């Protein structure tokens, strides 16, 4: 660059254009070089499988002995197949009963954590610890809590003179699974909310205190509205996570009793890799799940953008 020929500092227009084009091309090439390692993985192991799910969902047969094209028959039969339908139902119920307590609990913990002056880090450490437990291990731990004979829950009930409860029976299994999820996720969202609360404008709260607003009024009319976007994001993302529950159901309850805790991904796995080889069916339910998740993602992107447009 610095070595430009001094006799001809001005370039003819066509030369200028050619040089600019060349520079742009080189820049484009550099960009692709930077992007390529990730982009190839993205295409091969994410985009392709998503499209592959669509393809597989139109076929019948087994992964191991070949399949044939049957059009949309999998989707037409889907509503009539009890096992598929109950797995969707279980997953929706699971998300519905696990997400609200996770977020309400997390918000409560976050409000407490944001207001204490000393010792916050030890609480943070302990509250966050269950988040780092793999689902499989969490489920093992909960076997020790829910055991009828020596589980912690029944010991506590016994201490207060109550009757032992069969926690993993048909009545409670899905609820227990949801509570496990609350235990495992509440810390994650609590940390998320703490950061958001600490970042809220301090002056507003000082003004509210001067105006005599009670703690609850401040929460109701300041914190909640200010956190609206954050809360909305948390609702969507935790719902999406809730729809993916699998490992805890496999280890804690084995999908049972019966199919009481067989979730969508659990059912997909059963269709393909356990007893029956219904690969098309598995893909059809997977596609339903993927579409639900994409729908939630799009709603979130749209709403976040429109809000941002407003302010």
């Amino acid at each position, binding site marked *: 660059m610095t070595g430009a020929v001094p006799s001809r500092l001005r370039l003819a227009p066509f030369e200028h254009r050619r040089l600019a084009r060349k520079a742009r091309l080189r820049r484009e090439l550099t*960009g692709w070089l930077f*992007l390529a390692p990730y982009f190839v993985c993205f295409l091969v192991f994410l985009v392709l499988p998503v499209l592959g799910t669509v393809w597989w969902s139109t076929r019948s047969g087994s*992964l191991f002995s070949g399949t044939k094209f049957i059009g949309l028959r999998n989707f037409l039969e889907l509503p009539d197949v009890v096992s598929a339908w109950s797995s969707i139902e279980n997953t929706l119920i699971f998300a519905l009963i696990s997400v609200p307590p996770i977020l309400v609990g997390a918000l409560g913990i976050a409000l407490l954590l944001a207001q204490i002056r000393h010792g916050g880090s030890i609480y943070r450490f302990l509250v966050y610890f269950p988040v780092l437990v*793999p689902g499989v291990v969490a489920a093992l731990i*909960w076997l020790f809590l829910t055991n009828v004979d020596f589980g912690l829950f029944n010991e506590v009930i016994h201490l207060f003179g109550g009757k032992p409860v069969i926690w993993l029976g048909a009545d409670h299994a899905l609820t227990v699974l949801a509570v496990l999820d609350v235990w495992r996720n509440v810390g994650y969202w609590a940390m998320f909310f703490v950061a958001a609360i600490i970042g809220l404008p301090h002056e507003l709260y000082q003004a509210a205190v001067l105006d005599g607003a009670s703690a609850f009024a401040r929460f109701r009319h300041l914190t909640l509205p200010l956190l609206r976007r954050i809360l909305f994001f948390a609702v969507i993302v935790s719902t999406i996570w809730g729809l993916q529950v699998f490992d805890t159901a496999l280890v804690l309850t084995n999908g049972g009793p019966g199919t009481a805790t067989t979730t969508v991904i659990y059912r997909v796995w059963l269709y393909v890799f356990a007893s029956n080889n219904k690969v098309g069916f598995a893909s059809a339910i997977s596609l339903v799940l993927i579409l639900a998740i994409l729908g939630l993602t799009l709603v979130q992107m749209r709403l976040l953008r429109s809000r941002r447009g407003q302010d």
Partner: protein
Amino acid sequence: MAGATSAEARLSGADHARQRRRKRRRAEFLRHLLLAVITFILVAPFYYVFLASLKNSTAIFSYPPSLLPLPLYLGNYEALLWNTGFLRWMFNTLFVAASVTFIKVFMDSMAGYALAKIEMTGKKVIFLAMLILLMVPIGALIVPLWSLVSALGLTDTYLALILPPLANPLGAILMRQFILGLPRDLDNAARLDGLNDFAIYWRIVLPLIKPGLVVLAVIIFTDQFMSFIWPLIATTSDDLQLLTVGVAALRAHGGANYGLWSASAVMSLIPISIFFFVLQRQFLARSLAGALKQ
């Protein structure tokens, strides 16, 4: 209070301040109390399992449960370490998680650099596709992924465990955000000094986003440490099993063995606890990654 004379009602400034301080201290105490109860409930399960892991099977089933693991019984741990593949699973998990983390930190920061700094055609479309597919879980893709990996002849290899997780868009999106946050003059100045993109990336951008890289590494490593469904499907031989898969197999096969299960639960948590203890701040920032990607 209501019946106080007007002289008393008007508290002196000092009294007022003291009263407010006392009220504040009481509120602080209440908050601590509540938090202590909550954390106790959250942590109690760990202690209960830890306790069980140090008891023999008759002690586990006996009532009332002793709250101290005495006499100490280490048979569960011995059985876990010598009679199962636990150590091998642990090695596999750490090896795979470390490999994915290492590769992905470079890959994602490079992609982030391109997405943030370089004008190129189709960039917007690619970024949008990444955002849209961000939340699609690997569990919903097991059929095509399995057939893809077996078509590539990778079933039952480390590569089968390492490659698919590389596709997750979160890291590249995060890195783009971090790099966009850097002052623009910096790379203009570097360019005037004759540095090309590779030098800018390596010598200026990477050192500046180091805190972000550490957070990213923590995110990837923990996700990988916890991953289950893909490793469950991608591997069949015992030598390649990851911790989560092996522990789940302990549960599934060989009947109820609460002693062994509790020992495996405790041992599984050791590596991640150590990391958490050392990198507390970065781990807690893991939650914030979600907010950043907006």
